[in-house]
């Protein structure tokens, strides 16, 4: 494959565009969450800054940036300042393998709406979601605070347990698509999205990404009722903001991947592909917010019970059943 300047320029444009889009989306997801949660609770939500509160994310960023940047005296300074980035960067990196739409043709070049089409994109995603745990674990440990440490320990064990069922629920998808490449997975769903063949795997993946995002009902690492704020108790200002925005980027990324793996990615009738992609991501983001407004937090043993004794065996059985079906077909 030969590279010329146009390709490099296109790549750079794509990277910057993806960066811009997901950071904006994450900021507005925070606003959407606050508004929708408020509606669920018969409130109005933030509606003061700009029309319908649309400038609220901007106000939040200004507030975060102008806050005092506090580093606890007994903390490990290097890891303390590194941890928020380690939580946010993998979430952003996940987007590099997500196909956002059908390939376009610009100036005789075929431009896929995907930063890079890795051969092992599924593995890349699983690896990144494991790396994201380091941000939580090191952030809590470096804070040198009991609450933060307890939160990070919880986060660590929770994410390890749910990574397993998440990985296992993706195996049937890979078996059906016969590839780890995202484009192949999307193309394999041209006639029928995988959710029709794999409703069980979809449900397991859905529950696992809830745990992976540390969202209610699996928000034990930051359970504010028990652990103050969990692993980011000691964080303030933009460092906290990075953890926060990382969580929301994670929601968008995992929603995008769920739609790629099970709902056929950008495929859909009538509307242009990229619109379908963002509709599906929006549906998943809304689901995250909706569930947050509905369910209470699980107890720690219930969480472990659900992960190890229920989801993981179920995912294994699902793999066996899928293999059996594929072999007999």
């Amino acid at each position, binding site marked *: 494959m030969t590279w010329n300047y146009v390709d490099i320029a296109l790549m750079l444009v794509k990277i910057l565009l993806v960066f811009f889009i997901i950071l904006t989306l994450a900021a507005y997801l925070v606003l959407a969450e606050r508004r*929708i949660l*408020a*509606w*669920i*609770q*018969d*409130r*109005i939500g933030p509606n003061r800054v700009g029309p319908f509160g649309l400038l609220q994310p901007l106000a939040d960023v200004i507030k975060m940036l102008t806050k005092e940047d506090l580093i606890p005296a007994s903390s490990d300074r290097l890891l303390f300042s590194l941890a928020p980035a380690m939580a946010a960067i993998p979430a952003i990196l996940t987007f590099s393998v997500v196909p956002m739409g059908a390939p376009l043709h610009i100036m005789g070049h075929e431009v896929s709406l995907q930063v890079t089409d890795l051969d092992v994109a599924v593995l890349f995603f699983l690896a990144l979601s494991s790396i994201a745990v380091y941000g939580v674990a090191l952030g809590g440990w470096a804070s040198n605070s009991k609450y933060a440490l307890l939160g990070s320990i919880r986060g660590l064990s929770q994410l390890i347990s749910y990574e397993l069922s998440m990985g296992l629920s993706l195996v049937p998808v890979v078996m059906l698509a016969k590839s780890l490449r995202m484009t192949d997975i999307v193309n394999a769903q041209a006639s029928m999205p995988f959710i029709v063949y794999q409703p069980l795997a979809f449900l397991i993946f859905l529950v696992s990404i809830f745990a992976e995002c540390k969202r209610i009902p699996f928000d034990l690492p930051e359970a504010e009722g028990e652990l103050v704020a969990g692993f980011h108790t000691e964080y303030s200002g933009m460092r906290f903001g990075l953890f926060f925005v990382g969580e929301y980027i994670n929601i968008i990324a995992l929603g995008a991947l769920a739609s790629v793996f099970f709902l056929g990615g950008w495929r859909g009738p009538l509307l242009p592909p990229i619109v379908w992609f963002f509709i599906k991501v929006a549906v998943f983001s809304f689901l995250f917010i*909706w*569930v947050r*407004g*509905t*369910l209470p937090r699980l107890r720690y043993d219930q969480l472990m019970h659900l992960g190890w004794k*229920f989801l993981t065996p179920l995912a294994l059985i699902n793999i066996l059943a899928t293999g059996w079906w594929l072999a007999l077909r």
Partner: protein
Amino acid sequence: MSVLRDIKEIITGLAITFGHIFRKPVTVQYPEEQRPMPARFRGSIVLTRDPDGQERCVACYLCSGACPVDCISMAAAEGENGRRYAAWFRINFSRCILCGLCAEACPTLAIQMSPEMFHCKREIMDMVWEKEDLLIDGTGKDPNYNFYRHAGIGVVNPRGENPGEDPPVDVRTLLP
């Protein structure tokens, strides 16, 4: 199957919360929207006028005596027709506790509690209200009451011409 039951419960909960999204919010957006206060709410203090439009206050100092926080002050004066009034009347609302004792003490129904809510001020001196700020045009809670029509001192009418009043008697004619 407890799992199926749990899933059913979760879906029920999700349906309920989804329904709430479309309900009207209960929020009152305070500075723009204000709930009407109950009629007998003890809000800010007003000085009312009698049905003829004159000031009811006779500057008797009973309100300022009843006030537990000493926030009312005034100076009495007397008009040419013998009508007493307050030369100045001042309520320091930064002290006032809205207890309503002044309104209870008032013999002429001049000082009354209104359901009007106070607003915050940035300057503490803006919380000190003078007589011009306190006086309202209406009669407040008892629209027909006029103190001088019952008091028997000839301010509104000559003596003895008010309702329920006998004309004054020349005591010398009673002498033996």
